[in-house]
């Protein structure tokens, strides 16, 4: 027998973004908050991601959002009172340039980052090798490095946000799927789930790669696609690699987790749009080829597991945040492969917008309307 209920806000999607939105709304005492997730928490992109957190970006907005998120990750263990650590390790990010174009972009990026107070710097190949002794610098032109970048445990961050939201009175409904959203007179009225209806005036679409489908439930088309990205993990070894190492032209990233395993991923420029999350042998071969060139000793490590997840891509690689033409329907999606690191600040900004507060970072440029207005904010530095 279906159970009907009512809420002041329903958040669709129990990934790190939805959990963060739920927590920040609950913290503001917004009323009765329900987080709806069709599987278990962090079962989507969040639980499949590289969980890297970097402030080295090519646009001011991405820099500001990531910088604020880093501050929030630094305080998270204390703030959320989770019984395990979120394992935020600030080992820095080392970005490698192999082409002149990349080098010129890096010079611009560092200038921008420094102007915003992000402690990034431009390094010679030799300086990069001093930070990562196993780095092959034979074809590296230059590097940039920011010591306060890092990574965290994506499961723990999600469970920590959801747990804290629950303690503040929010309800977390897992294994519950949203099937439709009822709009009356241009306003959100009800969320239809497989386990019953929830009357509400506020819905936040945090359905990750499925956000396009959820937006259609209220008749909105968002310019948006899902794209498979593959990733693997090795057996754990002694700590030997401090920063995340990343190259945009080689489309790879690699880090050593606090647990000792190496996690690495690689983008494929020919990846078709779609919802497949199959793993492929080709990825393992491509990844092995690139990583053994960049970090040769890594070739000795054994891969214990590989998997794939979805990026939720927008045409300008920036998220879509905030209100929409449907009253009460808010978007927190389109993170384009960096939604883990933006989740803390996103949750807070969405809560501010929903509670009619002035957002602590101006995100008016990240609204859905920018695509119609042709005001894209293009991010040049993505894997």
């Amino acid at each position: 027998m279906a159970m009907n209920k009512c809420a002041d806000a329903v958040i669709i999607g129990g990934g790190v973004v939805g959990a963060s939105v739920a927590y920040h709304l609950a913290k503001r005492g917004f009323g009765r908050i329900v987080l709806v997730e069709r599987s278990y928490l962090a079962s989507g992109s969040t639980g499949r991601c590289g969980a890297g957190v970097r402030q080295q970006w090519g646009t001011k907005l991405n820099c500001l959002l990531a910088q604020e998120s880093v501050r929030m990750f630094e305080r998270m263990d204390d703030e959320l009172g989770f019984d395990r650590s979120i394992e935020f390790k600030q080992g820095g990010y080392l970005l490698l340039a192999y082409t002149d174009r990349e080098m010129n972009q890096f010079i611009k990026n560092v200038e921008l980052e420094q102007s915003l107070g992000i402690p990034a710097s431009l390094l010679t190949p030799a300086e990069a090798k001093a930070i990562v002794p196993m780095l092959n610098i034979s074809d590296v032109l230059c590097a940039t490095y920011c010591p306060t970048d890092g990574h965290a445990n994506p499961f723990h961050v999600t469970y920590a946000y959801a747990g804290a939201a629950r303690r503040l009175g929010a309800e977390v409904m897992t294994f519950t799927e949203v099937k439709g959203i009822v709009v009356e007179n241009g306003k959100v009225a009800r969320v239809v789930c497989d386990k019953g209806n929830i009357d509400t005036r506020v819905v936040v679409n945090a359905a990750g790669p499925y956000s396009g489908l959820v937006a259609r439930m209220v008749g909105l088309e968002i310019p948006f696609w899902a794209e498979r990205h593959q990733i693997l993990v090795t057996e754990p070894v002694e700590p030997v690699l401090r920063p995340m190492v990343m190259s945009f032209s080689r489309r790879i990233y690699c880090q050593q987790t606090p647990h000792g395993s190496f996690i690495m991923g690689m983008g494929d420029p020919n990846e078709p749009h779609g919802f497949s999350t199959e793993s492929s042998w080709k990825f393992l071969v491509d990844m092995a080829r690139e990583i053994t060139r960049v970090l040769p000793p890594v070739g000795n490590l054994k891969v214990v597991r590989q998997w794939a997840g979805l990026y939720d891509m927008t045409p300008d690689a920036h998220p879509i945040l905030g209100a929409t033409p449907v009253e009460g329907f808010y978007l927190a999606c389109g993170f384009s492969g960096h939604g883990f690191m933006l989740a803390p600040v996103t949750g807070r900004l969405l809560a501010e917008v929903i509670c009619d507060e002035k957002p602590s970072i101006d995100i008016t440029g990240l609204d859905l309307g920018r695509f119609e207005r042709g005001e894209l904010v293009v991010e040049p530095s993505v894997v």
Partner: protein
Amino acid sequence: MACAKPEGEGAPGGSEGGAAAGDVVVICRCEDVTLDEIRDLIARGYTTIEEIKRITRCGMGPCQGRTCRQLVLAEIARATAKDIASVAPGRFRPPTKPVRLGGAVAGAPGPDVEGFEGDGDEQVR
């Protein structure tokens, strides 16, 4: 319509049988996860192997859950009063055996077809 009361952190689940209280029983030897830890999580409402794996790393070590998976499934079955066959077994992910990265560079023998099937995105329910 009246709002229902928020629910708590998950139903407390009883667990009896097996090891006696006080014994430290290691369920996952690769990642050092104990039976008490597993039972505690189940009692807090984490009743799928996918969740338990992600919180504790149980089954994520070099052996990829060859021993612990069955033990965790049995615990979930006991605590939720289900038949073990009806507890979702979780997904196996490739490769079937650890592969050295250096050995996977193009030209190496592959594809390990056996390990690359059935890792689709069916949701766990």
